C-alpha cells in the first residue's frame, strides 16, 4: 500500500489520505443509516396499517432482519466494484464499520454527552458547575443509596459466590449432579420482575386481626413457630436483606455454573496426590481446589459485584426504593423520570461509571496480556 503512495506529491498524498478516511467513514455509516431509514419507513407504514398485531410483528421481524443482511451484501458489492486498491482499503470497514458506528452512537458518545449534562441544570440548559456532584455525594438520599448498594455488594456477592462454591463442590461428588445444578440454575432464566412477584408472595403480610390467615410462606413459618407475623419489606434496615435474598436466589446459579466448570478443570492427579499425602477432604479443598480456581472466583465475584452495583429491577418492583431500600440505579431512574432532573440523573450515571472504571482498566490489561498481536 505504501509503495503506491510514493508516486504522488505531498498534497496529492494528503488528499488521498483524506479520501480514504472519508471513504471509510461513509462505508461505516452507510449500512446502519440506510437500514435505519428503511426500517423507519416500514415501521411508519406498519404502525398506520390495520393488520392484526401478530402479522405486523412477523412482517417487521422478517424485514428488519432481512434488511440488515441485504444491506451488508449491497455495501460489499459496491465496494468490490471499486479499483482493487480501494476495495482493499475500504472492505474491512464494510465488516466492522456498522458495529463500530452503532456502538459509538449508543455507548461511546453518550459517555461524553452524559458527562456534559452532569454539569448542567435539570433541563440541560444552564451550567451549574459541580452542583449535581455535590448532590450525588452529600445528599441524605444518595448516602442512603450508597449504604444500600454497599450492603448489596458485600452480602449479595459473598452469599451468591459462597453458595455457588458450596453447591458446585458438593454436586461434583454426586450422581445426580445435573439435576441439582439445573434446579439451582433455573432462576437465571426468570426475569427480575418475575422473581420479584415470586418473593413478594413469600414475604406477603395480611395484617393483624382475628380470622386472618397468613398466606405468605415466611409469615406462616413464623406464626407456626409461635412468632408474630411481620411486614418484612417495611422494616428498615432489615428489609434490604430480604431483597438481597432474592438476588442470592437468582445469582447463585450463575456462580455455581462458572465455578463448577472450573472445578472440572482441576487435574484429578492433583487431588489424588494430596489425598495420598494424607490430606483430608477439607485440606484438599483449601490447598488444592481454591488456589486452582482462584482466578475464576475473582471473575465471578467481579461480575456479581458489578451486577449488584447496577441493580434496579428488584428494588423498583418490590419497594420502589421506599422504606430505606433505595439504590443508586433506582435513584437515577427517579431523578430522570419522576423528578425530571437530567443533570442530577447524569451525575449519578457518571458515579456508576466511575465505580466500574477499575474493572474496565483490568479488562483492558487482561486483554492486552493475552493478545500481544493486537
Amino acid at each position, binding site marked *: 500500500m505504501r509503495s503506491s503512495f510514493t508516486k504522488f506529491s505531498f498534497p496529492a498524498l494528503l488528499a488521498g489520505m483524506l479520501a480514504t478516511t472519508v471513504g471509510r467513514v461513509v462505508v461505516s455509516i452507510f449500512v446502519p443509516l440506510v437500514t435505519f431509514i428503511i426500517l423507519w419507513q416500514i*415501521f411508519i407504514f406498519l404502525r398506520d396499517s390495520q393488520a392484526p*398485531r401478530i402479522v405486523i410483528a412477523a412482517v417487521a*421481524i422478517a424485514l*428488519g*432482519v432481512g434488511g*440488515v443482511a441485504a444491506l*451488508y451484501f449491497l455495501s460489499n458489492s459496491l465496494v468490490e466494484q471499486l479499483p482493487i486498491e480501494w476495495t482493499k482499503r475500504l*472492505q*474491512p*470497514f464494510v*465488516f*466492522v464499520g456498522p*458495529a*463500530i458506528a*452503532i*456502538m459509538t452512537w*449508543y*455507548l461511546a458518545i*453518550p*459517555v461524553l454527552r452524559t458527562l456534559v*449534562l452532569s454539569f448542567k441544570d435539570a433541563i440541560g440548559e444552564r451550567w451549574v458547575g459541580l452542583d449535581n456532584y455535590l448532590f450525588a455525594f452529600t445528599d441524605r438520599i444518595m448516602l442512603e443509596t450508597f449504604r444500600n448498594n454497599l450492603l448489596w455488594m458485600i452480602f449479595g456477592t459473598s452469599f451468591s459466590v459462597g453458595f455457588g462454591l458450596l*453447591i458446585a463442590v*458438593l454436586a461434583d*461428588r*454426586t450422581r445426580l449432579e445435573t439435576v*441439582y445444578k*439445573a434446579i*439451582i*440454575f433455573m*432462576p437465571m*432464566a*426468570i*426475569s*427480575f*420482575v*418475575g422473581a*420479584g412477584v*415470586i418473593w*413478594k*408472595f*413469600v414475604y406477603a403480610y395480611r395484617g393483624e386481626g382475628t380470622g386472618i*390467615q397468613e398466606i405468605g410462606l415466611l409469615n406462616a413459618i413464623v406464626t407456626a413457630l409461635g412468632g408474630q407475623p411481620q411486614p418484612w419489606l417495611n422494616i428498615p434496615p432489615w428489609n434490604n436483606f430480604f431483597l438481597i435474598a432474592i438476588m442470592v*436466589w437468582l445469582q447463585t446459579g*450463575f456462580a455455581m*455454573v*462458572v465455578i463448577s466448570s472450573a472445578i472440572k478443570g482441576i487435574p484429578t492427579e492433583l487431588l489424588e496426590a494430596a489425598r495420598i499425602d494424607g490430606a483430608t477432604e477439607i485440606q484438599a479443598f483449601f490447598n488444592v481446589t481454591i488456589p486452582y480456581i482462584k482466578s475464576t472466583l475473582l471473575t465471578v465475584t467481579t*461480575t456479581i459485584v*458489578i451486577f449488584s452495583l*447496577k441493580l*434496579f429491577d428488584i428494588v*423498583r418492583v418490590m419497594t420502589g426504593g421506599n422504606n430505606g431500600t433505595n439504590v443508586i440505579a433506582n435513584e437515577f431512574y427517579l431523578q430522570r423520570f419522576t423528578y425530571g432532573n437530567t443533570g442530577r440523573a447524569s451525575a449519578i*450515571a*457518571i458515579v*456508576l*461509571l466511575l465505580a466500574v472504571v477499575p474493572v*474496565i482498566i483490568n*479488562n*483492558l490489561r487482561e*486483554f492486552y496480556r493475552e493478545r500481544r498481536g*493486537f
Partner: protein
Amino acid sequence: MTKSYRFQKWMSSFLVNSVLIVICIIWLIPTLGVFITSFRNSQDILTSGWWTVFPHRESVEVARIVLDRSVNVDGPIQVEGITTTFEELRQGVQLPDGRILTWFGNKRTRTIVVTEMRWVGFSHKPLTLKNYQDVLTGKEIRFIDARGNEIVRKGNDLGNAFINSLTVTVPSTIIPILIAAFAAFGFAWLNFPGRGLLFTMIVALLVVPLQISLVPILQDYTRLNLNGTFLGIWLAHTGFGLPLATYLLFNYISSLPRDLLEAAYIDGASNFTIFTRLILPLSVPALASFAIFQFLWVWNDYLVALVFLGDSNRVITYALASIVGEKGQDWHLLTAGAFVSMIMPLTIFFALQRYFVRGLLAGSIKG
C-alpha cells in the same frame, strides 16, 4: 476394614446428597408456591396458604346445632352430652371424642358449629384455569375478593404483552448477532489501520453501565420521534448488546484454524464469500450460545423497555410490574402473570441449557 470404608463412603455421599436436597428444596419452594397459587380460586388464595392444597388435617364443619327456644343461653347449656356455657362455647369446647363445639356469631344466633379434625385431600378446594384467562385478556374480568365481594375490572392484557415481547425480542436478538458476526470476522481476519484501537474501545465498553446511555439516547429518540416504537427498542438492544456479542464472537472466530481460511483465499474466494460460506456455518455454536443469552436478556429486560417503550407497547415485564404496582393484593392475577412471563424463558432454558451455559462461561459481563 472394607466394610467400614464402604459405610464411610456411603455416609459421606448420604450427607452430601442431603445437604443438596435441602438447598434444592429451598430454591424450588418459592416458585412452587407461585405455580400452585396461579391455579387457585381468587378467594381461596386470600383465605388460606397455598400449602393447604396438599393433603393435611384441618378442622372441617360436620354439623350445626340450633338450640331450642327453651334453652336459656345465659345459663348452663346442655349439648351433645356435656354441660357448658356460652362463654366457653365462644372459646370452643372439645368433646371427649375429639369434635369441637364453637358458638356461631353472637348470642342471638343460638347456633353451635361442630367441627372435626379430618384429613382433606387435593379435591377439597378445586383448582382452576380462570386466573390465566383473566390475566391474558384485555376485556372486563370478574373475580371474588377475600370478603366475598365480586370485583369487576379491566384485564391486564398479558396476551398482547406476550406478542409485544416477541416482537421486541426476536429482532433484538438476531440483528446484533448479525452485525457482531460481520465485525468479529473483520477484526479477526482482516488487517486495517485502527484495528487495535477500535477493538480496545469494544473491550472498554463491555462493562459500561446502561444508565450512561439512557439520558442522551432518550434525547435523540425524542428528536427522532422514536420513543415508544419497536424500532427504537430494537436499535437500543442492538447497541447495548453489540460489545459483548462482538467480543465473544471475535474470541470464537479468531480461534478457527488459519489453514482453512488461507486455503479458501488461495482458491480465490472473496472475503464476503468466506464469511458467508465458511465462517458463519463454522460459528453456529458460538452464535447459538450468544443468541440464547441475548434472547433471555431482552425477554427479561425491564429497564430498557420501561425507558424506551413504556406504556405504548407494553412488554411482558412491564405489564407484570404494573400489576404489582396497581393491584398488589390480586395474587391470582400476579401469580398467573408471573408464570405467563416465565413460560418462554423457562422453555428455552430447559431445551437449550447446554448452549446457554456455554454462552455464560464464555463471558457474562454485560452493561
